[in-house]
């Protein structure tokens, strides 16, 4: 028998920080041994993950130790894309960046386009862009989830995932629509386990039966892009069977608000307003009142004549008329969605039964904003969650709105058992911030008057000139995408290349793999990045790229600023950005350096503040011109104030650290966070836990904390008046007019009540040519491009297949493992199939971002990621079929969200003898010093009972 050491020392030190291996921002405990990272596990005290950790988080060590890590700033010395770089010092790198950027700022700040990827410091980056003076800023949300965020914020003042969560502890029926498995993954998995242990029912609506859908009680395999038709059929059924929470609609939504009923006039469909501008309601006797006047019991049904003689009708009447229409009946939806009408009707009945017959209560008295006391919270225990399967379609905004309307009809918003706001939400519908960058607001050497991103409420708020021409490089907030609240990153390179609407001088990207999987039309994007003018100069003159790894995009940069890993820097997971709070209360967190970098790299946020100071940007320098935050990002996190007393972190504010939410900067704030495990959280008072949109205790608390400016209710917007303003313009009313070719689409798609329309790409191609729908799904164990250089995760997902329904394949003469050509209107790829049963028969799918370009990420060019992995991106165009000209964007017409899930394809068996996926772009040359080490990886040998340690007698 061997002698065992059952109590070996695990680590010398354990430090709590925040994970960065995806967007969940779980708390982690990092074990260090001899100054090296030995083991990372979930932090049991952390509100997000409560001790668990996913595959990505557990593989963080391999990202930290990746051979793809950049080691010094790089300056391009050969043609773009060829990988010829010279390593330079930081002084030279920052000097170069400063010279390029100061030239732009002095001439026209809009000629800088600054876009970041799945970054978690947007409160900083947005502020920096505003100070620089460019409207051309956004993160990756235009690709990812702006439909969810915008539909949620305009409708509820919160949204799925980021600003809300299902009440997993209490719900009895949970419906999940189109959720990729990497998003909010630990909270969802924890929640599903709780839900199933309690015997609650879980319904998953998803074309693919993997991951979460695999454990659902009911899996509804829906055709991609048709979820809206399903939801409207459910809404129709609720109206038809009269299973509607009328009291909820009347009290908390704009259902009773009067809309002007004067077709053909400039105010048709707008709210009837009193002299002070407040929307009006009618009581049962037809008398008019401001909607928030005391002691009014508004009618949901009474159409009235206004004092000016015009007719007006409550929103609810328009809703009833719309949704009772038999055109929305389950039989009709079945033909669209592929889901049997009987099942749709059964689902509607089950939703109604649980909401109304199994209502629950939380016996806590509360008082609403009117001052009316309620003895308890009544819960409609039906909870919803939805993400990219809804979002990445050209009808995603309206589909998400339809889901929110369904929640309202059930009274299932922020009550026990339903979807609940994560603190610090709700915010006003929409948040009262308009996008900066209107005509005259961009000026040489000057900041923008407002942040670049915001929430327009009508044509006057668009960023277009007098002729309707977009003012942003990505055309966000133009008539093509009026509510583009996250910008449209997917169009930046194409538009900058085309000089449409204008050329730029510097493209500045952070952690956005735009030369590969973060772009539609990847090969075309690469061509645009390298395309030249007749004089030999590049169409996009200068490209600065910041990343920690040798991604595909590095090869196309002129200047590369190497970032650290998440274990080597400070970060704020801030209430000003995407908070990690829960329905029970707000929370925020930090990252802090657990180990020091072993190379000449700098945290991007430090670099950005340094550049800001060198450029003399307002807020980043003192009056004497010296840097305002000489201590870098950590200094900024502690001392920056967005408004008096409001900074990046809400915990331990005030000079003595005793204040929460509002308070003076506390020089010891970061220490307090570190002592507390890297995070701060607070629990809302009991009477403030639910119905936050109308709950006086909550609203007052939110004002005290600095979350809301005023303790005013957030009225749930069943009817979205801003959309009607754009429609009226499209009908010819007002000075601000859309281009003629967009009028019809704006009228049809920007309906103030949720509608469903078929995705554009499918309408623009012949069904017979492109009969299948193609989508990507995220694996739980891989995130974006980052997983590829991870020695462990790439063993789980090193290649991908095109997954196809067995019956569909059989009809096409395709057998398992065959190679196939997949063709869209835009391109063709050749890949290998894997047949399965658990997929909607008209859908093919694959895992996202597994395919890599040969030579990138320090992988052997023969790596399976490059030879057998692939991207669907090659098949997706920025534009709809039919040439550019006046062609429309392949995007949601409300938000500009990239409609990459609308892809239509045909699949044909390829000739035999294939073994490599196509297109295979030429291998990239790795940057200096980047190479995969030869030989086995023996990570951990130094720490454990390895042969060498046993030989040493340890």
């Amino acid at each position: 028998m061997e002698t065992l050491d059952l109590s070996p020392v695990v680590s010398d030190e354990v430090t709590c920080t925040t994970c960065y291996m995806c967007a969940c921002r779980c708390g982690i405990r990092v074990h260090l041994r001899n100054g090296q990272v030995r083991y990372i596990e979930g932090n049991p005290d952390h509100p997000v993950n409560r001790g668990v950790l996913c595959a990505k988080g557990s593989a963080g060590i391999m990202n930290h130790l990746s051979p793809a890590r950049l080691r010094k700033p790089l300056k391009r010395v050969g043609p773009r894309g060829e990988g010829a770089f010279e390593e330079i010092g930081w002084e030279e790198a920052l000097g170069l960046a400063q010279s390029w950027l100061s030239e732009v700022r002095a001439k026209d700040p809009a000629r800088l386009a600054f876009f970041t990827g799945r970054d978690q410091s947007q409160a900083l980056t947005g502020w920096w862009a505003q100070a620089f003076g460019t409207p051309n800023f956004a993160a990756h949300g235009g690709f990812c989830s702006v439909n969810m965020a915008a539909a949620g914020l305009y409708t509820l003042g919160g949204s799925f995932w980021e600003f809300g969560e299902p009440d997993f502890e209490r719900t009895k029926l949970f419906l999940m629509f189109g959720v990729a498995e990497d998003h909010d993954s630990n909270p969802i998995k924890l929640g599903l386990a709780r839900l199933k242990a309690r015997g609650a029912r879980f319904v998953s609506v998803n074309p693919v039966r993997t991951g979460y859908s695999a454990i659902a009680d009911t899996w509804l395999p829906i055709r991609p892009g048709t979820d809206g038709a399903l939801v409207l059929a459910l809404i129709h059924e609720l109206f038809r069977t009269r299973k509607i929470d009328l009291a909820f609609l009347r009290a908390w939504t704009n259902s009773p608000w009067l809309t002007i009923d004067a077709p053909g006039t400039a105010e048709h469909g707008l709210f009837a307003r009193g002299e002070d501008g407040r929307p009006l309601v009618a009581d049962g006797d037809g008398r008019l009142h401001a909607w928030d006047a005391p002691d009014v019991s508004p009618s949901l049904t009474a159409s009235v004549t206004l004092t000016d003689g015009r007719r007006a009708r409550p929103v609810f009447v328009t809703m009833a008329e719309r949704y009772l229409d038999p055109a929305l009946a389950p039989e009709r939806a079945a033909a669209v969605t592929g889901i049997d009408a009987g099942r749709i009707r059964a689902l509607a009945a089950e939703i109604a039964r649980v909401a109304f017959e199994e209502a629950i209560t939380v016996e806590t008295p509360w008082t609403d904003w009117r001052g009316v006391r309620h003895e308890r919270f009544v819960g409609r225990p039906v909870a919803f969650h939805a993400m990219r399967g809804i979002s990445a379609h050209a009808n995603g905004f309206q589909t998400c709105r339809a889901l929110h309307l369904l929640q309202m009809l059930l009274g299932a918003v922020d009550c026990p058992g339903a979807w609940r706001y994560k603190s610090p939400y709700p915010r006003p519908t929409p948040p009262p911030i308009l996008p900066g960058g209107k005509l005259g607001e961009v000026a040489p050497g000057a900041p923008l008057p407002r942040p670049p991103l915001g929430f327009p409420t009508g044509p006057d708020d668009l960023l277009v000139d007098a002729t309707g021409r977009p003012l942003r490089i990505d055309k966000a907030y133009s008539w093509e995408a009026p509510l583009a609240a996250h910008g449209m990153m997917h169009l930046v390179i194409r538009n900058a290349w085309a000089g449409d609407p204008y050329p730029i001088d510097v493209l500045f990207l952070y952690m956005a793999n735009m030369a590969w999987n973060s772009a539609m039309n990847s090969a075309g994007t690469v061509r645009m990045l390298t395309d030249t003018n007749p004089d030999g100069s590049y169409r996009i003159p200068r490209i600065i790229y910041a990343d920690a790894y040798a991604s595909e995009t590095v090869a196309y940069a002129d200047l590369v600023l190497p970032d650290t890993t998440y274990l080597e820097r400070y970060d704020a997971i801030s209430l000003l950005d995407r908070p990690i709070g829960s329905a029970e209360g707000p929370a925020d967190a930090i990252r802090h350096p657990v180990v020091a970098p072993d190379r000449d790299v700098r945290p991007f946020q430090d670099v950005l503040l340094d550049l800001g100071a060198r450029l003399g940007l307002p807020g980043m320098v003192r009056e004497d011109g010296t840097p305002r935050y000489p201590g870098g990002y950590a200094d900024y996190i502690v001392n920056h104030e967005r408004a008096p007393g409001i900074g990046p972190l809400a915990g331990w504010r005030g000079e003595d650290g005793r204040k929460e939410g509002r308070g003076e900067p506390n020089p010891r704030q970061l220490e307090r966070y570190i002592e507390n495990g890297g995070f701060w959280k607070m629990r809302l008072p009991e009477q403030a836990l639910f119905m936050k949109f109308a709950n006086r205790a909550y609203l007052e608390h939110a004002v005290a904390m600095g979350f809301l400016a005023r303790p005013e209710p957030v009225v749930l917007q069943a009817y979205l008046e801003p959309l009607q303003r754009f429609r009226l313009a499209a009908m010819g009313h007002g000075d601000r007019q859309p281009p003629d070719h967009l009028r019809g689409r704006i009228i049809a798609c920007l309906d103030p009540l949720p509608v469903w329309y078929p995705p554009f790409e499918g309408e623009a191609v012949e069904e017979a040519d492109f009969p299948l729908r193609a989508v990507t799904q995220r694996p739980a164990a891989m995130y974006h491009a980052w997983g590829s250089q991870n020695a462990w995760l790439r063993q789980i997902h090193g290649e991908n297949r095109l997954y196809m329904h067995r019956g569909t394949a059989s009809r096409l003469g395709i057998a398992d493992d065959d190679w196939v050509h997949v063709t869209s209107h835009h391109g063709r790829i050749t890949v290998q199939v894997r047949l399965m049963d658990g997929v909607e028969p008209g859908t093919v799918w694959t895992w996202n971002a597994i395919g890599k370009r040969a030579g990138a990420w320090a992988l052997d060019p023969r790596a399976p990621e490059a030879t057998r992995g692939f991207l669907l991106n090659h098949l997706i165009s920025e534009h709809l079929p039919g040439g550019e000209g006046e062609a429309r964007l392949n995007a949601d017409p409300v938000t500009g969200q990239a409609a990459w899930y609308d892809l239509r394809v045909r699949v044909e068996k390829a000739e035999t003898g294939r073994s490599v996926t196509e297109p295979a772009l030429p291998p990239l040359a790795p940057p200096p010093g980047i190479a995969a080490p030869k030989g086995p990886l023996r990570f951990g040998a130094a720490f454990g009972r390895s042969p060498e340690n046993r030989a040493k007698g340890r």
Partner: protein
Amino acid sequence: MTSLPDTQPAKRLGLVIDLDTCVGCHACAVNCKEWNTGGHSAPLTDLDPYGADPRGVWFNRVHSFEAGEGERGRTVHFPRSCLHCDEPACVTVCPTGASYKRAEDGIVLVNPDTCIGCKLCSWACPYGAREYDEDEGVMKKCTLCIDRIYNETLPEAERVPACVSTCPAKARHFGDLADPASAVSRLVAERGGVDLMPELGYRPVNKYLPPRPRAGLAPAGDDRSPETTLSGFLGWVDRILSR
């Protein structure tokens, strides 16, 4: 050939894996690798880690496959690791005594100092749970985190295998399956936990909980409302709200 303990171990430590909530996320597999590569069997070597054929030692692997057809079809996520059998052929087949079953708790281990890398054990194991470290020339396998579950340097609550501690779907449970009163034994009794391939007679200690019965959607009743016109509907609304 190697003998098993003379008497049945007093404890039968093992895992109970819930196939009802496992979503196949690989969290258990990766955290296991991360813990164990610096632990009792360090390292869990990865060959060709950034090359054309990356392959490493993993004590726990998750397999996803489909079973059943049509309405009864389902996707199964199946984590696989050593089951610490009562009758482990991998032990009895070992020519050097390197593979052994602990008398105290039934955990099956490999002594790397006496393992000759002959791989007989991996041929004998019907579950494919043995992992050969080509670089080192020895067999490795799940230790049930033996350097963790008794580790007095860790807080008591953390003395569970890494896979159990990290599982986000709470699909993994650890305990003494010899004790009928233990939480894991009760879970097995309540949920009808099963042995993997019991017909082979290796009497695995680990148990799998089958998926719970799934609640189908009952067909909707014929609840057509009396009137489907707009005016009839609005009349109903007024009646309800005027109550």
